[in-house]
């Protein structure tokens, strides 16, 4: 009895419930709803500048600034709320001359305040001399786009145009089968789904209709939460309404088809902890839901963010056990209740499916553990990238049933916003949405959760996802809908064993045809250590002792030879191997002739780098250290970067790998304090030990920028005069880095200062024929240390030796003379000829004398200045 107390105590001590971690959303896309009839993108215009205006503004626009040397252009910035001007035809050093000769350099995309009417923006811009064309920008859709939701082209997870198989294959379902039915209710146990979201509310149940806030002490209302809103949008954002994103089972607004209904069961709220999960799970079953999406799991990180693998394993080991005896828990009871009671009442089916199904995100620790969803009665979902590889963060293992896209997923955000999120939290609603489509199409009297489970797993794509990923096959919406329908292709008589690498067998087989004369959809390779077991097996349900691996025929024709692999066999063993053809409905042919093979041994992964540096980083260092991690057995490699717990900022961190075998450690020198750190890059295949590559790295001390010499003041003679100042001659960083400069000008009507991108050379341009301005510069290094310097720019004609300003004057009159400070005898003479003020002051062009004239009577005066042996007179009006 007491045996279970210890693991339970450990579980209670370290396990806490939290939503599955996802990185912070990246650049939420603010999509302004277009007005009825508006087909152009608001706040964006295509503008053509003439060379006469480009001469004044091009340098600033290319450096990213919208403030330029053109006062006319600057005058419309605030009124139109212009935030960016980007060249449409990007600068191409190789072809720039040709582009400029053709005039391509004149076109810019101008982004302005979306609340400004396009007609006003166009008229204001065209009123500027030098702007010849202002055109609207239209949304772009591919001709085959199913829906007019403007962000659908960015939702690669529905239709991937680059790695064509790495999506959920939902578009054919939308076209030929279903877009969702309002008779299907999906419970989303998560943060609150924004009840007022423009792209969700039509498919969202209100609190009165079933949504509920399970936070203790809450108001009962659903409070919008970014995670929950994003998950809900993937499942059932309204389709074809000209707004935002598409949802997998969101219906078709243009055709008046409502999507599946989302029931928001809120268990997360910002700054309020979490709610009652088990109650939320059961609530769904009691109020009409037949599907439950759960993008959350147990948190096994301590207060410092360090992952406790032992605690995670113990928790996992508990949760994978059946719900009996010492392994019984409220969570498992909640799951079992949902599975048995959803869609049922009094033992009879009342909903579109008899029983319910719970989907859980596998988790983002990159570990083979995933409590509590690893409970076998739940379907667990892992995550892939847009390239079809397993994400580095996805948990994995034989308990993960299926996978879906989970990196860079675009969906809804609170407040009518849209944005990207990543995580198995995002993969899970893809599978939920597909299940909702299947129930929408196939559901009804007699349709059971077991049938749905078979369709989801059986119809999934296990050909393109290596079994060694251990995240199950890739969810396939069309496969799930059509699973079990149709006839099997003709059997494959024989095939060829091409090679054996470690525990992988490579085969080539011919493509056979089905009864309709279509090529088979795929070929399944079956292997067993027992010939009799292999000969007796049903390829559709191979059973114990049979290992399978599938690959798709794709564009090959009947009779063509296609090749594939079966992996995850034992090492140094003797196997009997056969193949079977299958169609899209996963109907399998009888197996082929049997061949015999001997598998090889396992080799460990190898970690290597071409980096020869010393791992001593300056604060300003930002670069990539490339690594290759290879496995000669072609096994999937698990990679983990164990960072130094003290390197809280992550000065060295592992980036997401986008190419097999290639990994990158990113060095960012200014995110952690100086010191010595120790990290370990680890790699292992699913069969052997962990290979470690220890890395000791040092963040060097940061020195503040220092002034080398004083800046010289500048005198210019007329508007258009240009001076160059190389700031590196005046301020330098002892660490040798290029500093970031912030420029402030006291009078922007006198001078304009620009800094070429990547350079410390300032270009100072006089904008007026006379005036004085102080240019203040602040230099900051990557460590945040800074110093400030300033210089004065005086613009005046070469013939001007004395200047008095302001004129008219009210309080203080400034008298500037030559470049060299000298004594000046200053007299103020009234209109009657009386000297009302006489003083002597030392002044210069950059250090003018300041004469307090506030007590002088209003009138016209002569200012007489004698300096340097010369006498200068000018007329000053005192107000």
């Amino acid at each position, binding site marked *: 009895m007491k045996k279970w107390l210890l693991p339970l105590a450990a579980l209670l001590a370290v396990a806490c419930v939290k939503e599955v971690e996802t990185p912070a959303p990246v650049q939420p896309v603010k999509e302004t709803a277009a007005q009825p009839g508006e087909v152009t993108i608001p706040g964006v215009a295509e503008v053509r500048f003439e060379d006469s205006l480009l001469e004044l503004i091009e340098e600033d626009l290319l450096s990213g600034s919208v403030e330029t040397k053109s006062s006319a252009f600057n005058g419309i910035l605030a009124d139109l709320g212009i935030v960016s001007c980007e060249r449409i035809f990007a600068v191409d050093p190789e072809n720039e001359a040709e582009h400029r000769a053709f005039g391509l350099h004149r076109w810019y995309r101008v982004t302005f305040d979306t609340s400004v009417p396009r007609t006003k923006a166009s008229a204001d811009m065209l009123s500027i001399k030098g702007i010849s064309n202002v055109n609207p920008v239209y949304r772009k859709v591919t001709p085959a786009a199913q829906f007019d939701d403007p962000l659908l082209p960015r939702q690669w997870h529905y239709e991937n145009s680059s790695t064509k198989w790495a999506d959920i294959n939902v578009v054919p379902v939308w076209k030929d089968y279903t877009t969702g039915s309002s008779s299907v209710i999906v419970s989303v146990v998560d943060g609150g789904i924004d009840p007022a979201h423009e792209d969700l509310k039509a498919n969202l149940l209100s609190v009165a209709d079933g949504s509920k806030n399970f936070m203790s002490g809450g108001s009962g209302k659903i409070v919008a939460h970014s995670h929950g809103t994003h998950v809900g949008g993937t499942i059932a954002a309204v389709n074809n309404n000209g707004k935002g994103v598409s949802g997998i089972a969101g219906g078709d607004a243009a055709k008046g088809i409502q999507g599946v209904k989302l029931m928001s069961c809120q268990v997360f709220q910002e700054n309020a902890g979490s709610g009652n999960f088990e109650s939320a799970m059961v609530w769904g079953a009691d109020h009409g839901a037949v599907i439950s999406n759960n993008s959350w799991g147990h948190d096994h990180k301590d207060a410092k963010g360090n992952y406790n693998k032992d605690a995670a394993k113990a928790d996992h080991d508990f949760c994978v056990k059946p719900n009996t005896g010492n392994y019984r828990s409220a969570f498992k009871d909640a799951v079992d209740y949902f599975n048995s009671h959803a869609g049922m009442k009094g033992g009879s089916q009342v909903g579109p499916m008899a029983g319910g199904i719970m989907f859980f995100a596998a988790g983002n620790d990159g570990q083979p553990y995933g409590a509590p969803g690893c409970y076998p009665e739940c379907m667990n979902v892992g995550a892939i990238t847009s390239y079809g590889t397993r994400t580095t963060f996805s948990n994995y293992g034989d308990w993960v049933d299926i996978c879906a896209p989970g990196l860079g997923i675009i969906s809804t955000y609170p407040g009518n916003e849209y944005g990207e999120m990543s995580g198995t939290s995002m993969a899970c609603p893809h599978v939920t949405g597909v299940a909702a489509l299947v129930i929408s199409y196939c559901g009804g009297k007699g349709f059971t959760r077991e049938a749905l489970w078979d369709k989801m797993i059986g119809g999934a794509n296990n050909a393109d996802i290596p079994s060694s990923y251990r995240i199950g096959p890739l969810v396939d919406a069309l496969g799930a809908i059509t699973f079990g329908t149709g006839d099997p292709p003709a059997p494959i008589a024989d095939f060829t064993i091409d090679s054996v690498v470690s525990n992988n067998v490579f085969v080539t087989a011919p493509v056979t045809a089905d009864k309709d004369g279509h090529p088979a959809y795929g070929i399944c390779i079956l292997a067993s250590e027992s010939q009799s077991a292999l000969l007796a097996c049903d390829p559709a349900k191979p059973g114990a002792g049979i290992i399978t691996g599938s690959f798709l025929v794709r564009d090959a024709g009947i009779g063509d030879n296609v090749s594939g692999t079966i992996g995850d066999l034992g090492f140094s063993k003797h196997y009997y191997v056969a193949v079977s053809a299958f169609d899209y409905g996963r109907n399998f042919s009888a197996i082929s002739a049997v061949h015999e093979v001997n598998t090889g041994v396992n080799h460990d992964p190898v970690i290597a780098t071409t980096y020869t540096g010393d791992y001593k980083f300056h604060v300003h260092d930002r670069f990539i250290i490339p690594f290759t991690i290879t496995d000669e057995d072609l096994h999937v490699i698990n990679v983990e970067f164990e960072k130094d717990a003290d390197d809280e900022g992550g000065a060295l961190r592992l980036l997401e790998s986008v190419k097999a075998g290639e990994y990158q450690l990113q060095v960012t020198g200014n995110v952690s304090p100086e010191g010595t750190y120790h990290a370990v890059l680890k790699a292992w295949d699913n069969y052997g030990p962990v290979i470690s590559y220890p890395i000791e790295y040092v963040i060097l001390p940061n020195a503040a920028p220092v002034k080398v010499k004083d800046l010289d003041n500048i005198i210019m003679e007329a508007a258009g005069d240009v001076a160059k100042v190389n700031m590196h001659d005046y301020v330098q960083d002892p660490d040798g880095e290029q500093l970031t400069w912030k420029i402030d000008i006291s009078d922007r*009507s006198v001078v304009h200062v620009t800094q070429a991108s990547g350079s410390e050379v300032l270009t100072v341009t006089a904008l007026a024929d006379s005036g004085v301005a102080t240019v203040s510069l602040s230099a900051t290094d990557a460590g945040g240390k800074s110093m400030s310097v300033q210089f004065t720019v005086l613009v005046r004609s070469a013939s001007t030796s004395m200047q008095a300003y302001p004129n008219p004057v009210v309080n203080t009159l400034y008298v500037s003379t030559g470049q060299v400070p000298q004594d000046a005898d200053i007299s103020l003479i009234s209109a009657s000829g009386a000297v*009302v003020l006489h003083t002597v002051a030392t002044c210069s062009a950059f250090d003018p004398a300041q004469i307090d004239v506030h007590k002088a009577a209003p009138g016209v005066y002569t200012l007489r200045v004698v300096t340097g042996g010369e006498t200068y007179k000018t*007329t000053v009006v005192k107000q």
Partner: protein
Amino acid sequence: MRKIITIIAAMSLAIVASAQGTAFEWLRISRNPAAAGMAGAGYASLVHGSAYSVNGNPAVAPLVDSKLSAGASFSLVPSGENTRGVTSAGASWRSGSFSVSAAYIGGKYPEVAFASDGGGEAGSFAPSDLMAGLGLGFAVGENLSFGANVRYALSLLTAKKSINTVNGDIAAMWKSGSLGVSAGVYCLGPKVKSGNTKYPAPASAKLSGNYALTFGDFALDLSADADYFFNGTIGFALGGNFEWNSIAYLRAGYCYGTPAGPDFKAAPVPSHFALGAGAKYFGVGLDLAVMIVPAAGTTICAGLSYGF
């Protein structure tokens, strides 16, 4: 009389109490070339005639012989790096013991280039000044007279800014034989408001004396004038007018004014030397004066007059 003196004293005290510069100082510069040639001295003399009495001593007009006097002058005055022209005209009519006078002064400055707070270009404007006034005089017997002037003055400083004032003079004069004396207060009026500040007018109390010598065809008129300006400064002028047969005239004078002190206090009329010459024939006079002001430069004033 006591009441008037009390009021004048109170007003003068009020003016002295404010530490500000004095507005409309140019009203105290004589535009009569004959008087200008004597550095402004001669308020107790009848030798300058009465045409410009609105810009001089209002008590002179009822004592001069001429029944009608008129004059016009043009002055070239240094202004900044350039000069400005000031036009003046005056007339006086005497009937018995009474006299009525009128005068006008007007001038435009060269275009002033304005500058912003940072020294940048901020447009330009040509300021201008204007004065129009009237005078009344009354003689008691042949030796004593009283007079008063009232004038309106305007200065356009910028296209949007101008100042104006109304002020006046009160004077008394006694002339007997070769001797003449005069006392009066000049440019008395309310402060000039500009923004939230008020600036005093160039008011003063003046005492003048004159002695005329005649020897044969020649005559010499010596004048001395002393001002106490109500801004706490003083001025005095000494001048002489040498004539032959009432046809040709030579004049010279010196004026002293308190130089610049704190808070822009200086005598409205600066220290300067003056030289003048004139000719008159059958009542038509032509006069020329040159005033040399050390800091400001040289002013030239020329005028035509007529009296009968």
